């Protein structure tokens, strides 16, 4: 007998639709990115997507899972786009491929595939590559020495030598290095006044990418793809920690707005800590998860050796998720007013 089960009605939703909306929310950021450094980012996204889908197809066929169903779910594409956007835009192609392969093969499928991975695959890719190739992962294009598309392409494909003059540090890195070189004699204000690197409220140009991520994230929230808890807690954490140190010594610590719109803050808040699979699932758990990730990210970013700390912070918090979820189970219907 053909066995059917209620409910016989379902909402028109699918994993694919969720993932497509996440991709759509990334589009404003990508558009600003293209305006900032050119269409090379689209090439990087294409490379990451191709590598991710190939790895996904390979793993699926190895595990004898239905290829069409899972390749089309869009999850590997989301991972790929996040990798491409988190990596330096002029990184050599193989670096992106290594990241994508590691994310899909190890971080995703070796842990059981879609829905089973305890760690955020894109952040695993970032962490693995920044530990293994710190120099390449720290080279960001110098915006005032903008290269043409063919030059950029040659860099990505590795057919031209990488020249130091063409790359720089991220705004966060630039600030940290300048403060270190200044040995207490220089202030954040004077460093940020340098129009070479810094814009209106954060990194020159990059601040607008962050604004675009914020808009995309708000759209996801409005579409109920994500809830407000984790992004709010993450951004609140950034503001709280950076604000406290900034008030304590404004000369040595950048203000909260700078931190909100620098590095991976906005991408992390709306596209990384909101990952349902590797993040916390309860409302209170999401708050704890987001806030703690922000604390760690800020500490690593300001006091650590890496240019940014979002990836490590998120991975560290991923480990804590089962515990957080266990202790933040919301009370159920009828059980709220327990004495």
């Amino acid at each position, binding site marked *: *007998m053909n066995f*059917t*089960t*209620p*409910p*016989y*009605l*379902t*909402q028109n*939703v*699918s*994993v694919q*639709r*969720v993932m497509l909306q996440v991709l759509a929310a990334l589009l404003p950021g990508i558009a600003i990115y293209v305006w900032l450094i050119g269409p090379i980012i689209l090439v990087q996204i294409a490379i990451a997507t191709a590598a991710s889908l190939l790895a996904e197809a390979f793993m699926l066929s190895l595990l004898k899972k*239905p290829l069409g*169903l*899972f390749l089309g*779910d869009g*999850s590997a594409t989301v991972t790929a786009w996040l990798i491409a956007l988190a990596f330096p835009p002029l990184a050599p192609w193989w670096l992106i491929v290594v990241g994508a392969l590691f994310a899909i093969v190890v971080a995703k499928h070796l842990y059981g*595939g*879609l*829905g*089973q991975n305890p760690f955020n695959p894109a952040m695993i890719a970032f962490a693995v590559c920044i530990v293994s190739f710190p120099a390449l992962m720290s080279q960001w294009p110098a915006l005032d020495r903008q290269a043409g598309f063919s030059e950029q392409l040659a860099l990505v494909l590795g057919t031209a030598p990488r020249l130091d003059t063409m790359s720089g540090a991220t705004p966060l890195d630039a600030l940290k290095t300048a403060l270190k070189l200044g040995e207490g004699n220089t202030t954040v204000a004077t460093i940020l006044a340098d129009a070479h690197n810094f814009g209106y409220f954060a990194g020159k140009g990059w601040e607008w990418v962050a604004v675009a991520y914020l808009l995309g994230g708000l759209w996801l929230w409005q579409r109920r793809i994500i*809830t407000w808890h984790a992004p709010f807690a993450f951004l609140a954490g950034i503001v709280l920690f950076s604000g406290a140190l900034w008030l304590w010594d404004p000369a040595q610590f950048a203000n909260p707005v700078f931190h909100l719109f620098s590095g991976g803050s906005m991408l992390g808040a709306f596209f990384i800590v909101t990952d*349902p*699979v590797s993040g916390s*699932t*309860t409302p209170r758990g999401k708050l704890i998860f987001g806030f703690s990730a922000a604390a760690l990210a800020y500490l690593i970013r300001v006091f650590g050796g890496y240019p940014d700390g979002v990836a490590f912070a998120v991975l560290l918090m991923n480990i804590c998720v089962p515990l957080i*979820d266990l202790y933040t*189970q*919301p*009370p*159920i*219907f*009828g*059980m*709220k007013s327990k004495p």
Partner: protein
Amino acid sequence: MLQLFKFKGGVKPDPKKTPSVQMPIGIAPLPPLLIVPLHQSIGGKPNPLVEAGDRVLKGQLIGGADQWLSSAVHAPTSGTVLAVEERLAAHPSGLPTLSVVIEPDGRDAWIERTPLDYTALEPERVREILRDSGVVGLGGAVFPSHAKLAAAKSVPMDELIINGGECEPFMTCDDILMRERAEGIVLGSGIFRDLLKARRVLVGIEDNKPEAVAAMKAAVEKLGENFEVIAVPTRYPAGGAKQLIRVLTGKEVPASKRSPEMGVQCFNVATAYTAWRAIVHGEPVLSRIVTLTGNVEQPRNWEVLLGTPLKDFVALGKPKSDTDRYLMGGPMMGFELPSLEAPLVKATNCIIAGSPSLFPPPAPEMPCIRCGACADVCPHELQPFEMYWFARARNFGKTQEYNIFDCIECGCCSYVCPSHIPLVQYFRFAKSEIWSREREKNMADAAKARFELRNERDEREKAEKAERLARAAAAKAAVKKAPPESGSEALSGDTSVAVAAAAPLDADAAKKAAIAAAMERARQQRESVQPKNTEGLTVAQRKEIAEIEARRAPLQAEE
């Protein structure tokens, strides 16, 4: 205006209710055959009181309630009983159930109906009448109503909720009943109010049924009652008893409690209506209003005799040619009927003809991505994805830690799941596994107890036998010592006389006999507490036993 509360979660499926309320309630024609299952409610299985060949009248008791939590079943019309046998039930399992098959004679002749003034009766008597009239929850749960009509001893009954929520899409049987027979509902609710001594009566109706709200308000006013008729926001499952109680009173009844313990009780509108018919008109529950809708030419509500074969019933709606299935109940909590041979029962509130375009085949199941959409819509604020995880892993203890028994199986979680996981099925699976394990454990415990009792009995019998032998030996010895004339008397008399004679001679044996007698009394006492397997037999079984006994009697006489 009463302040309304909110329940968390819920979904808003397309109501699709309009097509079936365009016409008034139709009276379904008498079918050629009625198949009346005896077990139509929660609780015990009523015993058949008729057998093949019996003539029955409309309203005649054909299945008697076998225990307190049980409900009587009646002949829906007059006619002849063709058989009392196992027939296919309107149940997803497709299993048969003991049913009374009646061939109507077309006269529809009633038994004598005795209207009652319930205010002059003991409440206990009114509850008995309701049980023997077959009044059960007609919202679909078919819980015997009389068992819900007692207030908790220590908690005053603050509110009686009359549920006209009807939140399932497609379904309109309560809507149309409220529109057309509001006064009966109000009068029935009055009976419930008096039995429960409820302070207030609140009638909750989803606000997508303005006609029903108006009709109920008018009836309340006309009858001079002080009931409050309240339109509640339309959101599935607002018509769930616990959700409606929450919305109207703010009280949340957990799975571990019964609502009277919190001073509230809830009845469906159709139940109130049938209670009024039963008490005030002496008419037991013989029919109900059923919505016939979906992929049919003529969607409509019908008043149908219980036991009407579903194939006869659905023909009334003229199903379209691409109909590929029939659902009983709503599309959220109903089930696909295994066969239309099954009859319509008290639980049948709605029959939906389905087609591939109306209910498309489910999309392939994907892994859970822990998005939490299910938790957002769960009206009991559970974490369905966690329960799913553990149910799938057969870690049933964990599912209970995540309160699986608070799940009302409303289907909201499956409705929103982007991975198209049949979550409710997983939860039903887990629940039934837990139940069957508990049953097995209870059975094992009972078997152990039986084994121990048997051992005890064997030992006792051995001891008694030894006792008898010893006594017989003692008696023989006594006879030898005694003069021959009294000896012959002792030998011809019964054993007790012999014992009496022997007793003074053997004090030890007497003590033992006293112990044996005490143990025998204890055993008899135990047995009288345990129900015998000769109780609660059907007419057929009793007949069979009588035949066997009749065959055995001459054989025994020959011996």
